[in-house]
Structures are given as structure tokens and as C-alpha cells.
């Protein structure tokens, strides 16, 4: 519990510092901290290649697909609960009904979320988070940030992450080794889902840092507008 709080505070301080620094930067650019972000990206990437990628490969080779799916479902169920909270904060009662229905259904009959019955009967996931809620409340994305181990984010989405650390259900687990195990498995599960994307970036990108930044910002904009983003101001040809 304490460790998590310390982590959250440290992240909050770093974010506050970057907010202050952000005011000094040229407002036109989405990535005023590019030198710092690139340095963090290098660290992240080195750890990813040395530790995460082999660990993921091991996880995929050793753990059968149905079990990996059950693990994903378990963490998705927690995400659905977070999504339901955000639906309420956004005043989207339709989506709240869907997400909360999913959580109740899957927790009760899916052995605590290991089976995703709700998706099987076609109840779609809301996929809302605190970053999107802040966006819908009118907060701008703010400067782009690359945080080692977490990956691409922004001042707004990062603030969302910190909120999540405080309110997420894992905060209520007092058994530290158990909680850390859940974090570790969660991280492996999440990273495993990006295996295909990693392969794609490795082939497609001229500069992976820039490629990931653009893809992240485009994706978040798409989610913010519920899959129907208005056209971006076109660059003159």
C-alpha cells in the first residue's frame, strides 16, 4: 500500500513538474519534452528487449492459449469496472449499464471474471478510462510523455493513470507479495497483447519513437471521439 502511494506521489510530482515546464515550451508542438522522452524511450526499449520480450515469448510458449485468455479476461473485468466508473463521471448511462452489466455478469458467472460471458452474448466493452473522462470534460491532451515501463502517455492521460492507481481495486489488497504478483502478471498479459503490434512497428517504422508517438496520439483522439473523430486540420499540399 505504502509503496504504491509513494509511486503515485512520485509520478504526481513528475507530472506537476512537466506541467510547469510545459507552459514554457512552444504551445504548437505536441512533444515539447522530446529529448527527455527519447531518453526514457531508450531505457524502456532496452528493458523491453532484454527482459519483457523474452518473458512474453516464454509466457506464450508455456501457457496454453485458453489460460492466457482467462488471464486477459480477469484483467479486462477490472478494466470494465474502471470503465463503468468513468461512464458515470461522463454521464453516459447507456455505456454505464453495459459496463456494469458486464462486470456483474462476468464476476458472478465467470468465476470472478475469468470467463467473459458478456462478450459472448455481444455486450461490448466500454473501454473508458480517466484520461478519456478528463478529455471529455474539456482538458487538452497536454504535452506527450513517454514513461519507462508504462509507455506512451500524455499529461492528461498520465493524470488518468495516477487516478486509477488510487481508486483501482488492487489498492485494497494488503498482501504485498500477492498484489505485486497481480501487477506482474497484469503487465505480462498486457505486453503479450502487443506482440503483433511490436512486430508491425519493427517493420513499418523509420523512427520507432516517432511512429509510436503518432499512433498513440491518433488512437487516443479516435477513442475520445468514440470512433468518429472530426477530420484533422489538413496540411496544405
Amino acid at each position: 500500500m505504502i509503496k504504491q502511494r509513494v509511486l503515485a506521489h512520485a509520478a504526481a510530482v513528475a507530472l506537476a513538474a512537466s506541467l510547469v515546464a510545459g507552459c514554457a515550451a512552444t504551445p504548437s508542438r505536441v512533444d515539447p519534452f522530446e529529448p527527455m522522452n527519447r531518453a526514457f524511450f531508450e531505457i524502456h526499449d532496452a528493458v523491453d528487449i532484454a527482459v519483457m520480450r523474452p518473458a512474453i515469448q516464454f509466457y506464450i510458449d508455456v501457457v496454453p492459449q485458453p489460460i492466457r485468455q482467462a488471464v486477459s479476461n480477469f484483467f479486462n473485468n477490472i478494466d470494465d469496472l474502471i470503465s463503468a466508473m468513468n461512464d458515470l463521471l461522463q454521464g453516459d448511462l447507456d455505456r454505464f449499464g453495459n459496463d456494469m452489466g458486464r462486470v456483474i455478469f462476468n464476476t458472478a458467472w465467470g468465476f470472478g471474471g475469468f470467463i467473459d460471458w458478456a462478450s459472448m452474448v455481444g455486450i461490448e466493452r466500454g473501454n473508458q478510462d480517466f484520461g478519456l473522462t478528463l478529455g471529455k470534460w474539456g482538458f487538452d491532451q497536454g504535452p506527450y510523455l513517454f514513461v519507462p515501463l508504462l509507455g506512451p502517455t500524455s499529461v492528461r492521460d498520465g493524470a488518468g493513470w495516477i487516478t486509477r492507481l488510487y481508486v483501482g481495486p488492487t489498492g485494497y489488497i494488503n498482501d504485498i507479495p500477492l498484489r505485486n504478483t497481480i501487477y506482474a502478471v497484469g503487465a505480462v498479459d498486457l505486453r503479450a497483447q502487443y506482440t503483433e503490434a511490436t512486430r508491425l512497428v519493427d517493420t513499418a517504422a523509420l523512427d520507432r519513437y516517432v511512429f509510436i508517438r503518432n499512433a498513440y496520439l491518433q488512437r487516443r483522439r479516435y477513442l475520445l471521439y468514440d470512433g468518429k473523430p472530426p477530420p484533422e486540420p489538413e496540411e496544405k499540399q
Partner: protein
Amino acid sequence: MNAMGPMLRRILALVVAATVFHVAPALAQEAPDALVKRVAEDVLAAIKSDPQIQAGNPARIREVIEVKLVPNFDFARITALAMGRNWRTATPEQQKRLTDEFRSLLVRTYSGAVSQYRNERIDYKPLKIGPADTDVVVRTAVIRANGPPVPMDYSMEKTPDGWKCYDVVVGGVSLVTNYRDEFNAQIQSGGIDGLIKTLADRNKGVAAK
């Protein structure tokens, strides 16, 4: 003779009608959504049925993509869009090399992505299109066995050679938009020739930064 007149005319009318009905669909352009569906299903079927592709033979996959998919893309337009305002500053020779290298990179990337396909199928959304429309987005979703569907939208433009694709948007991420910043960054550091060299290096298998 008098009786043959109407008879002949009737046969003639029939022949004309038959010809018109046969030729008309060929003359009219294939609708963009029909084109996307035909090509996507064709590629998917080829990938699933080819044992060499299933075994992971990259040359074979690339061949399928080159023959079936590439003719339906307007790579000059894609490259020009990704270059943005830099396109005009490039010489015709540079434009040609850029288009060729970018095309190779996209084919390689696309081949790598679809070679992973096993149980995937594609869901085609209905398209609203007017007779005067020359620019449409055909929406599809790749349905996967594990994991949520991936929305995949094709921006299509009407050309004299039929509808051509000039952008692909995967889960809200546009190919053209994504490369615009990458191209810009490369041009700022090494000029247009620098960008051509980076693209060529990537196609030769040199890893990205």
C-alpha cells in the same frame, strides 16, 4: 417477308438487350465496397489455402499481396499525402524513388501483418454512396478468434481505372497521418535524399532507430 420483319426486329432487340445487359456491368465501375470485399476475401482465401504461406514463406506472401492487393492502391497518392508540403519540393526523379521505396515498405509491412492471419474473418459495414461521390471510406472490421475486433477503414478515390485506395485507418490510426511526421522528421535531418536512403535501408532490412 412481312412476317419476317417483326421477327427479325424482335431477334435483333433480344440480341441488343442481351449484349447491353452483359456489357453494362463491365462498363460500370465496380462499387468501392464491392471492390474491397472482393479483394480482401481473395487475399484471405489465398493466405489460408496456401501451405507455403502457412509455413511462413515471406516471398510467397509478398507475391500474393503484389498480385492481388497492390493494383488497387494508388501509391503515388499515398506517398504525396504522406510527404505533405514536401512533395512539391521533390524532383520528379525523387518522387518516383520515394514512391517505389515507400511502396516496398508498405508491402513488406502488410505482408508481415497478414501472414499472422489464421482464423480471422472480415466484417463489412454497409456503405452509403451517392452516384456523384468520388471519395468514400469503406469500413470493415477484422474479427479475431482471441481479442476484440479491429476496425479497418479504407479511404477510396474514384479514378479512370476504377476505385483506388489511398489510406488505410487501423483502429483510428491513419497510415498516411502516421508517416507524415516520420517523413517530416527525416527530411528535416537529412533532406529528401536522406528520407529516400532511410526508406531504402529499411527495405534492405536495416533496423530502425
